[in-house]
Structure formats: C-alpha cells, structure tokens
C-alpha cells in the first residue's frame, strides 16, 4: 500500500489517496511496481498523483513507501493543514510519513530520490538543506518499526543489507549539498553497475524515457562497453571493481561503501542513487526495462506505454542466404540451474546437424563433439558480429539474449527455465518467442539445485524436440526456410 494526503489551505481540508503496487493492470489507483526504484521514486510518484488529483494543494503528506500504510491512518496523524515541513517517526526515528510543501515536489522533485526512508533525522536534514528551512521530526508513540526483514510482506527486499545503502546514499547527498554552492546543478547517476543484462536494461530504458533527472550511470569496468553498445543516453561512470557475487558473501551495503571509495572524486561530484534490486521484481509481470524506466522517472498509467504493449524497438535479420541455416546458441545463464541441460542441447545440435543446419555456441567448447562451433565473446562488439553472422539466436535469460532481441532486433528464441519470462523476454511476434514447459513451479529462482524435483537441471526448460520445432518454425516464418 502507498498512501498520501494533499492539503489545500484555501479549501481547508486534506484529500486522502490510497494506491497499491500494480500487479499489471495499471488502474488509476495503482502505481507501477519497479524493483530498481528507490523508495524516494515512489514518493515522487505519490506526489505526482496527489497533485494530479488536487492541483491547488499546497502541502503533501507522503507515507513512507516501505510501510503498508493507508490514508485513513495518515489523516489521524495529520488531521489539519500543516504550516511547516516535518517528518513523523516511530520511537526509533524511523520515518512513517513526510509532510512537505508542494514546492519540494514542484522545484526539487529529484531530490526525493536521495532520501533514506530509514532515518527520519537524516531525511529531515536533507529535505531541510534542499528547502533552506528547518524540518522537524515528531515521534509518534507507536513503538518501534525495527529492521526491515530480508523479504518484506509488501515486496521490499532487505537481503544483503541493501536498504542500509540508502542511508549512505542520503548521507553522501547531504554532504554534497552542504559542501557545494552549485549543488542544484550536480548531476544524478543511477547506480546499477553489475550483471550485464541489467546494465543493458538500464541503458535501453534511458533511450525510452522522455524526461529523467539522471544523466549518468555507474557501471563496473567489465561491462563498460554495454551502455554504448545499447545506445544509452547516460554518460558512463566507470567503477573499477569486479561485480558483486550472487552468493551473498559480500553485502550490497558493504559493496556500495567500497564502490563510493573507488569512485573517488566522481562520487563527490554526482548524486548517486542506489538503484539495485530493492523489491521482489518477479511479483509483477512488468519487464525489467520498464522497471528501469520507472526508476529513471517515467510514470506509467497505461499498458500501451510498457515494453510489452508496443512493438520491438527494431527489427533486423541476416542478409545471408537461408541455406545453410546458421543458429547461434547461448546456454549458460550465470548460475548452475539457469544453464540449459547439456544432454538436451547435444540432442538439439545433433538433430539440427542432421538437417544440414549449422550450430554455434557462445563459450562452450565442450559441445564440439555434438557438432557445434564454440566462439568466445567478451565484449558487445564481438557478440554483435557473431549474432549478425547467424540467422537465428537462441538463448537463455541472459545478456546475449536481451542484446540480440531488444537491441539488435534479431530473430530470437528465449529459453526460460527457473526465471520468469515476462520480466525479461521481449514483445512477441514473428521475430520473437519463448520456448519452455510452463511448469507451475516457475519462477523458483533457485541457483544450484531444483527445489521441487532435486537435481541440478531445471525441468522447465523445453525438451529438445520443442526447441528444434520452434527453431524450424521461426526459420520458416522469417526466412522461408525449409530443411
């Protein structure tokens, strides 16, 4: 639940408004559910919605998006029009709601992105510095909210102490505002530096938003070529650190501390917004490109605005004659269970070979015996060349798949096992489809072994005969190919 109040001094009352995180329909009382958006981004959305409903409002009360609040409760806490900004907190100073003048939303909306949503005193100081006036904190005797759980009931994620990073983000922002007279001109950077597919989603999203306060993107050096290869409109800030492991051995908060150290002066010259996965992204059907678009500032009110609601950005195909048909596979997805099973792909490659179809694979010399040629691809330019040298691309839920379809518009078949297609597929059509078993256990998200059937292979992956059939069908649709 997301709640707010809009106060109009002239009318003398507050307008209550309740919203929910959208499950897909994007109704009027729903707000897009983005895993990459900081709590402050939801506060911006609440402010926009409140002002759309009450254009004359001069004060807004915005519930902390981390908490499942209702407007009815906010009305009890703030019964009359406020005269000065303040933050309501619990006994520990955890912010419950923010009572702010509309000029914060009108003139300084982007600075809401920097709030911690964890520490009332820190956020009061930050809002005060932006507004140039004192912002008080008032405690409400409701006890203590405590530390947010690893996975909250309303979708927030605090695994690997990621919400702690928001405090650091706010502290750094406050230091910049206090130190620099030109703080209003300091650029904003989105911090989502790692995992190639996600760097791509942010880069593509930047090309699909009309207006954004962000002009920079922090990217690990291993992936620094990706934004350019995806036509990103954001300037890349290179983070010279290896990406973080998925095993939780280094917490997100710890890594963020080191990342800011590593960025050195760049971190003092940029408002860095911690935009790592903060919500359980698979609870909604929205594509991660749209998650990134929302995080960058785009408001969604209609399905037609989403990636699934419009045709793919580009369409392209191989210029070479359709025979011999050449198929490029990418089968490793970053962790064990996400890898398409070896025995199955060997069958696919052998079956295609028997029909005269040539198979290539990215980074899998072990499939040479089955008849596939393996290529290494360590940068986007090499990958692009390889994709364009094949008629079809077939890949698991990983960077090459998203690059081939979303950026290059290449005829692509997505293989989905333990991840959810709608979060990272593409618009469906002649040049794109997925191939899977549609088991009810999808999406489990497990890493090394199947939580339902055991074993190290995901049974939701399509069997070889289906993959071969889908390849032949797409080859006929796009190239008129018949074996």
């Amino acid at each position: 639940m997301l709640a707010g109040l809009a106060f109009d001094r002239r009318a003398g009352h507050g307008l209550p408004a309740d919203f929910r995180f959208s499950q897909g329909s994007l109704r009027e009382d729903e707000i897009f559910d983005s895993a990459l958006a900081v709590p402050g981004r939801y506060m911006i959305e609440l402010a926009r919605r409140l002002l759309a409903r009450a254009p004359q409002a001069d004060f807004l009360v915005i519930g902390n998006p981390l908490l499942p609040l209702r407007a009815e409760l906010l009305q009890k806490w703030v019964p009359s029009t406020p005269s000065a900004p303040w933050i309501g907190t619990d006994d520990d100073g955890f912010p419950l709601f923010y009572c702010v003048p509309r000029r914060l939303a009108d003139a300084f909306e982007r600075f809401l992105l920097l709030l911690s949503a964890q520490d009332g005193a820190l956020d009061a100081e930050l809002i005060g510095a932006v507004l140039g006036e004192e912002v008080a904190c008032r405690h409400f005797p409701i006890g203590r909210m405590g530390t947010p759980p690893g996975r909250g009931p309303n979708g927030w994620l605090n695994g690997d102490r990621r919400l702690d990073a928001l405090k650091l983000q706010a502290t750094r922002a406050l230091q910049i505002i206090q130190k620099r007279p030109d703080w209003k001109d300091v650029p904003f950077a989105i911090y989502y530096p790692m995992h190639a597919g996600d760097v791509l989603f942010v880069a593509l999203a930047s090309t699909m938003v009309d207006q954004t306060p962000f002009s920079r993107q922090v990217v690990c050096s291993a992936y620094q070529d990706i934004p350019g290869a995806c036509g990103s409109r954001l300037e890349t800030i290179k983070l010279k650190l290896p990406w973080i492991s998925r095993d939780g051995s280094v917490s997100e908060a710890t890594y963020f501390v080191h990342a800011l150290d590593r960025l050195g002066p760049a971190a003092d010259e940029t408002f860095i917004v911690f935009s790592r996965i903060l919500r359980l992204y698979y609870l909604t059907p929205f594509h991660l490109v749209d998650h990134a678009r929302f995080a960058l500032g785009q408001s969604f009110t209609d399905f037609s605005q989403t990636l699934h609601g419009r045709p793919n950005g580009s369409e392209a195909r191989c210029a070479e004659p359709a025979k011999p048909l050449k198929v490029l596979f990418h089968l490793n997805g970053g962790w064990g269970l996400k890898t398409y099973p070896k025995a199955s792909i060997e069958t696919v490659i052998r079956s295609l070979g028997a029909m005269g179809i040539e198979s290539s694979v990215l980074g899998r010399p072990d499939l040479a015996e089955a008849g596939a040629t393996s290529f290494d691809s360590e940068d986007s330019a090499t990958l692009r060349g390889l994709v364009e040298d094949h008629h079809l691309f077939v890949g698991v839920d990983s960077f090459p798949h998203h690059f081939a379809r979303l950026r290059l518009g290449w005829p692509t078949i997505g293989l989905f096992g333990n991840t959810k297609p709608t979060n990272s597929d593409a618009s469906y059509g002649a040049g794109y489809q997925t191939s899977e078993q549609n088991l009810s256990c999808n999406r489990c998200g497990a890493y090394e072994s199947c939580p339902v059937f055991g074993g190290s292979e995901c049974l939701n992956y399509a069997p070889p005969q289906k993959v071969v059939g889908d390849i032949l069908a797409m080859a006929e649709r796009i190239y008129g190919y018949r074996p």
Partner: protein
Amino acid sequence: MGVLSDFDLDGLIAEYGCRYLIETGTGIGRGVEEAAKHDFLQVYSIEIMHKLALEVALRFADNPKVTIIHGKSEKGLKEAMEEMEPGVPAIFWLDAHFPGADFRMASYDSERNHDLRLPLERELRLLAEHRDISRDVILIDDLRIYENADYEEGPCQPAALPAPEFRHVRFVDEILGKTHHIERSLRRTGYLTAHPLKKSGA
C-alpha cells in the same frame, strides 16, 4: 610459488624508470600488497577467479593506485595497457599457469584448455603486439613448469606439467631475446627475468 618481494622493486624503478606494475594472478593479494608500497603510478593486478578478484579489490578499494581486474589475463592486460601512458616503462610480473591451484580453489590440472592453463606465451606475444616492450622489465614466476632444474622448492608436480611439446621457453628468447637480458633463477619455484638492454632515458 614466487613472491614479488624477492625482487628489488625500488632498484628496478630507479634503473629502468618503471612506473607501472602489472601482475597476472592476483591470488590473495600478496603481490599487490608489496607493489603498493613502492612508487608506482598504478598497480594493475589481473585475476581469473572472481572470488579472489573481488576480495582483493574490496581490500584495496580506497587505494586509487591499485586496480584489480577480473577476467582472463589477455583481456586484463589489454585493459591495463589501454589506461597506461604509452612509452612509460612497466614491470610485468607474470604467473606462468592457471592460478586456482596456488589457493586450493582448483587442482593444477583442472583446466583442460591449454591457453588458460599456460597463458604465458600468449601474454608475452600480446604485450609485444600492443606496446614497445623494449624498456619494460618482465618477471616470470614458476619456471619449473617449463624447465627442469634444481629449484629451491623442488620440481613441479607432474600433473601441472604441460605436454612435452609445450614444455620450453623458446618463445621468450624469440620475443625478448634481442631487446632484453634474460636470466634464470633457481629461487623458490624458479624465476625467469628479462631486463631491458636499454636503460631509462637511453
């Protein structure tokens, strides 16, 4: 395994004007620790094992003179060379083999790909292709993998040895023979060092 502290880094800096140190095989960061004590403009260390690379990178995150690059040595060397000021001599400290074994993360023969197991020749050719190495100092560790001799720490485990046709360092003479003075040392697991015939400013 060898250690960087066996070499007189200050002496090499003074004598050859080396201002960069590039290491392949970060391991647990001993080489970086040593190099960071000396007056280099930048120390680059390349590690293929992500866990090791991340641990050491975070340890040195607040030292702007240290860069840890995760990836294959070839990719890392290219990345480092792109950043280095051209014409400024460097020390290249090269591990001769797949690194996991030194840190009990893999056995010596766990990597079947010859290029990954013994990347030394490919690395040297890459360096020669991408920069004028005539003023660079090259320090190579684990000579015992390539040649038999009476090394301090004994012979190489048979499992780590390359096929006989690959067990030689003739390529070192071929690449560096005309520009460097090449020496062998029996210390620890054996070093092969190549010092420029031309000294700094010569």
